């Protein structure tokens, strides 16, 4: 590796840190940014990905009466009682605009999750043709914050986000001409253009990138920085119950006790909070320590444009005798400035407090962040394609080739896998067992395929072919949808289903953009070959093998 780290001045060592930290973290960070930007529209993507659910909806969630909700909670409890009378956790979700069904979630003693959707009138499991089993847009959100790897994934994402913070700070230190080059973007100048693109996308959107990285860390602050909490408390539950001013957490006693009727608990809870409930949960069902919680329905109008969350209210009951233990009214804020600060950061990160214009703003700035990361990774290689820096001695060429392949798979490969997920959703038959899991497995398989392609093909051809595949998958998505479900863009627009139409319009737009860059790449290659077929360009086209 370069010896520059110990020999140069401060700025040079920051440059070393920025280059290598950025390269190593860049692949994962691009994934976090791209899936995060797509995840801004998670509910809309879920809406597009589950066309059956809307068509077969039997209830109107907005006009349910209290007795109807009570009946649904009863059906949910009956099902859960049968599937898992004793376990770690139950949750019953009442029909909402996005999910006009009863949603059940549970965790067994080992905290393995389970889920089932029920028909809200009959209380029976929904047949496959009425409900496409899919993670929908949440797939992207899960990629974004845990890479579908659970707690380990949350730690990985935090680790790389920390590197991003360091890369942003070191990037500011090494950029000599921040204000002079503020508006400078020269196209078609090779390495110079990539540097310009990297500078412009990061400098202009710097407030957003700093904010999104820091607030992202703040969302999981109790996971990432728990040291002082463990010095002060026996376990995190005690800390949280003190923070939320709730009765202390109770561990499982091992004494069996049945959960009382949740119907009464729901009625009491709704009465108390003065609004419909959205969820009823039970902690440790079957154990004498069981507690039930009723959560008030979130009102988006009430929370609109407010950075300090107003809270939708919640009530806690002893689930073995139905007695109220604690409650917090809607709009009642916990009087703790530091906690409020954390909540503000959380809301700033989640982008769901200002309607669609704000979502689009986050989406575009998130994509700008992805461009910042991608252009940095590409710049690293472009610089070395022209002239090897021999950081790895005799292995240098091989390492470069590996980096190039990872760049391709991480950038265009992931983009293909993401739009491919929409295709998988439409092509995978409805009656496949554990369908939602299979969709995600196929997503990863597709992504791995793009990596193999990047390894096997010369670098520039791999870039072009993957961009072309991405463009075709985007541009043909509306046609695929038309063939497989009969829905199409025009009918979406005529029926003013803007959420579904938005998904396809965005795909078309991104497809056109990709097509434009393929053309640009081809023209440049042709020009380069005509001008100076030097050793470097020939090598680059062969992928420096």
């Amino acid at each position, binding site marked *: *590796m370069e*010896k520059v*780290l*110990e020999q140069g001045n*401060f700025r040079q*060592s*920051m440059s*070393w*840190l920025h280059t290598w930290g950025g390269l190593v973290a860049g692949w994962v960070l691009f994934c976090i940014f791209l899936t995060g930007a797509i995840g801004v529209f998670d509910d809309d993507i879920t809406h597009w990905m589950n066309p059956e659910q809307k068509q077969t909806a039997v209830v109107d969630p907005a006009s349910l009466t209290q007795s109807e909700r009570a009946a649904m909670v009863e059906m949910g409890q009956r099902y859960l009682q049968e599937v898992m009378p004793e376990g770690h956790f139950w949750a019953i979700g009442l029909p909402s605009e996005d999910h006009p069904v009863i949603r059940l979630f549970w965790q067994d003693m080992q905290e393995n999750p389970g889920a089932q959707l029920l028909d809200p009138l009959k209380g029976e499991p929904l047949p496959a043709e009425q409900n496409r089993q899919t993670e929908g847009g949440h797939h992207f959100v899960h990629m974004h914050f845990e890479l579908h790897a659970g707690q380990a994934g949350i730690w990985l994402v935090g680790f790389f986000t*920390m590197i991003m*913070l*360091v890369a942003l*700070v*070191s990037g500011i230190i090494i950029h000599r001409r921040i204000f002079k080059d503020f508006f400078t973007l020269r196209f078609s100048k090779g390495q110079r253009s990539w540097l310009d693109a990297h500078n412009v996308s990061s400098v202009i959107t710097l407030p957003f990138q700093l904010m999104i990285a*820091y607030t992202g*860390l*703040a969302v999981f*602050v*109790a996971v*990432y*920085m*728990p*040291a*002082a*909490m463990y*010095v*002060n408390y026996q376990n995190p539950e005690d*800390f949280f119950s*003190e*923070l939320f001013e709730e009765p202390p957490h109770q561990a499982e006693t091992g004494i069996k006790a049945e959960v009382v009727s949740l119907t009464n608990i729901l009625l009491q809870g709704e009465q108390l909070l003065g609004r419909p409930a959205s969820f009823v949960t039970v902690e440790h069902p079957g154990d004498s320590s069981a507690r039930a919680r009723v959560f008030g329905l979130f009102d988006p109008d009430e929370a609109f444009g407010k950075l300090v969350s107003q809270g939708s209210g919640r009530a806690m009951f002893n689930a073995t005798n139905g007695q109220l233990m604690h409650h917090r009214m809607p709009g009642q804020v916990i009087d*703790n*400035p*530091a*906690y409020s*600060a*954390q909540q503000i*950061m959380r809301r700033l990160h989640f982008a769901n407090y200002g309607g669609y214009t704000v979502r689009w703003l986050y989406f575009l700035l998130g994509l700008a962040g992805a461009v910042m990361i991608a252009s940095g990774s590409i710049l690293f290689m472009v610089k070395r394609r022209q002239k090897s820096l021999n950081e790895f001695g005799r292995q240098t060429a091989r390492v470069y080739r590996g980096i190039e392949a990872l760049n391709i798979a991480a950038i265009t490969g992931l983009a293909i896998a993401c739009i491919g997920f929409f295709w998988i959703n439409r092509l995978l038959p409805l009656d496949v067992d554990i369908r939602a899991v299979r969709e995600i497995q196929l997503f990863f398989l597709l992504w791995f395929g793009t990596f193999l392609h990047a390894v096997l093909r010369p670098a520039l051809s791999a870039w072009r072919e993957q961009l072309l595949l991405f463009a075709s998958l985007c541009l043909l998505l509306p046609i695929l949808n038309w063939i497989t479900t009969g829905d199409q863009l025009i009918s979406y627009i005529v029926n003013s289903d803007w959420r579904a139409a938005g998904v396809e319009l965005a795909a078309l737009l991104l497809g056109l953009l990709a097509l434009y860059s393929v053309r640009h790449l081809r023209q440049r290659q042709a020009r380069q070959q005509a001008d100076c077929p030097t050793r470097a360009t020939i090598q680059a086209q062969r992928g420096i093998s």
Partner: protein
Amino acid sequence: MHMTLPYPARIALLILAAIIGGYVFTSAAMIFFSAILPMSRTGVLVMTALLSFVVYCAAIIWVFAVRDVGRAWLGLLLPSIPMLVIGIWLTETV
């Protein structure tokens, strides 16, 4: 120390100093300041944890500004020990 080790080993130790040493230093500072600041217990814990990312980031930058394995490790661990001891002692006794 860094005269005897080969270059890749020194770089690896420096990176570890940034990641692990920096994290230990940050945690120690968090424990210390949450013990001495006059705020509610939950409040001070949330506040120090929120600010800890700034401290961690600064510690990492500092390690690469120093670029000396011995100084980096010592510089992070030496202040960590008293902060940890005093912080834990104060938390346990008060």
